[in-house]
């Protein structure tokens, strides 16, 4: 059996990749995927802890995260498509409507 710390380390690595993706990439789709990566890293952590403690709480929470993420994907993709239609670009730097 692989030790829990390996799972946690994997989760941390995945989360960091996600963060870097969000901060460094400009393409809205890639940023979106990076967010999914972070969500799944968190899911992995939750399940790891659930197994460690022998409770179901973390697993239930992970299911919720998956469900919410699925819904969020729908909304997010719709926004990205709408934005692309207006600007012919999926770069987040082109969407600066709230700049002072």
């Amino acid at each position, binding site marked *: 059996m692989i030790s829990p710390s390996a799972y946690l380390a994997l989760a941390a690595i995945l989360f960091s990749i996600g*963060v870097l993706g*969000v*901060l*460094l990439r*400009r393409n809205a789709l890639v*940023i979106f995927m990076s967010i999914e990566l972070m969500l799944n890293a968190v899911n992995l952590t939750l399940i790891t802890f659930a197994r460690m403690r022998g409770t179901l709480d973390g697993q239930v929470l992970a299911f919720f995260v998956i469900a919410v993420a699925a819904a969020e994907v729908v909304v997010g993709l719709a926004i990205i498509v709408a934005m692309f239609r207006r600007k012919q670009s999926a770069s*987040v*730097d082109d*969407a*600066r*409507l*709230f*700049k*002072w």
Partner: protein
Amino acid sequence: MVNGILAQSAVPSVVRADWLVLLFPAAGAIILMFYGQGIKRAAGAIATLLMTASFVVAAITFFQVVARPAGSRVFVHTIYKFFNAGSLSVKVDYRIDPLSITMMLIVTGVGTLIHLYSIGYMRGDAREGRYFSYLNLFAFSMLLLVMANNFVIMFVGWELVGLCSYLLIGFWFDREQAAVAAKKAFITNRVGDFSFLIGLFLIFNHFGTLDFGRVFSSAPTAISAGTATAIGLLLFGGAAGKSAQIPLYVWLPDAMAGPTPVSALIHAATMVTAGVYMVARTHVIYDLGHTAAVVVACIGAATMLMAGLIAIAQDDFKRVLAYSTISQLGYMFIGVGSGAYVAGMFHLVTHAFFKALLFLCAGSVLHALADRADITKMGGLWRKLPWTTFVFVLGWLAIIAFPGTSGFFSKDQVLEGAYGAGHTSLWAIGVIGAAITGFYMTRLLVLAFFGKSRDTEGLHPHESPVSMIFPMVLLGIAAIIGGFLINGNGENGRLARFLEPSIGPPAGAAVAAPGSSLTPETGVLPHRNGGLSSAALSGIATGAGVGGAVVALVMYGGLWDWQRRRENPGLAWRALRNKFFVDDVYQFLFTSVGKLVASAMAFVIDVKIIDGVVNNFGTVTTKIAATGRRLQTGLVRSYALGILGGSVLLLAFFIARAVR
């Protein structure tokens, strides 16, 4: 609608219509307010009829009350509950007792005659309907004041009277003089009203009620002499405003800027009598607070003397009469301040007769001379205005207290009251005042009506119509014989006996303060402790009055060239002429300094400090925002970095706390 409440005896079914006294003028005021302009000429007739009806009801009430034994002549009727606030419960109720009936008869009686006179006087005025509406409202307000059974309702009437005086003095508001005089009257009165209001607070603080019956019956035990003095002085502050006493008398001479019948109404039937009535009504307080009563009498004497002196040097017909009113009010306050409440009220009644008469005469003269009021340019009017001259002579006889006239009896009783109360110096001032009264009234009479006609070219004086002469004749008759009929016998007179249930002493109370010679046994007029006899006092005062008149007759009757003397006036004349510079001092002290303070407030406090603070809030906020809004880059990734940084900081914080 009206529930009789048991007062001191069971309410008989007869005294039930008395609320109509209030209703008629109120209805007139409201009807004419809305429809008066449309019906024009009929407005005066309606207003006069309603006042007459009111007078008839008051007279019926009077006879019903007189028919009852002296001990059961006080009735209190409650109309409805006004409001409850904490422990204060105020009812709209009114009081029928000899004192209020006396005032009701004066207000409605003299008021009716003035209404009648106004029909002729105001004919053709553009706003006749509104005029009569105000006139009715004035009568209603005064009736409310005198019929009130608690201080709150009295105060309502008190304020309404002030409002009406403002409306009527400023009736011709397109004339600047009238508009200014109206403001002056209103503001001066407000100063007095403020003092009155504080007095009411003090009463409520000590008694827990503002009901007349409960305050007056518990006063001897509930408050100390000091408190009574404080209350008395504060209430008198209000009276000084309404009744034109020092230091608040300045509004009354200017009040003649209104139509002349209004002056008659203000000076005789309503308004200025309110203060005297109020002191008589609250006499229990003044009996307890002896110092307050003495102050009232002294201020009355000072006002009487000062106003009399000023009247000598005035050339405006109505202004002379206005100062004479102030002077006569001073007499009334000498009376009520000396504990001679009946004498004060009696002088109020007789003064209402002859002063209304004199003012109506003034109106008739102004009517004839196209509103030119300068008596130095009149003279010889008796040929053109025989009736006016005749009734003016009647009023003149009454005001100089010629033996047998109404003024003779009432002034005598006031002075006798002052003398009897031990105020010998006030009595002496009163006698001097009588001489001065004789002098200035005779001067007015001679200059205006007799001698050669001066400078009336281009004018064709004509006698007034019958509707104006008739009320004047009635008042003339009252001015001559009214005094004898009402209270010819001093302390045993009809008025004295009638008023005893209202302003006799409260039973068993230690009324007389130490050192006072008030005698609780009679309460009506104090007995004298030796000194001059009644006849001697009367002789001295009458001699002074008639003497003053004779001096003026000689001086202005042709033996003395007053016109040439005037070209080179002395210092005393100039002081009198300028009303002792009181108006100028007030102008400086209150108006100029007031304006200075106001501009300091406006341009320093308001603009610099208050506006400055508000404006600076705006500027500083804008500046902070100008810097802060640069955070709003619009770049999603920079926001994400912010979120990350925040999360890391929070995490670090929790970890640090957990480790420690």
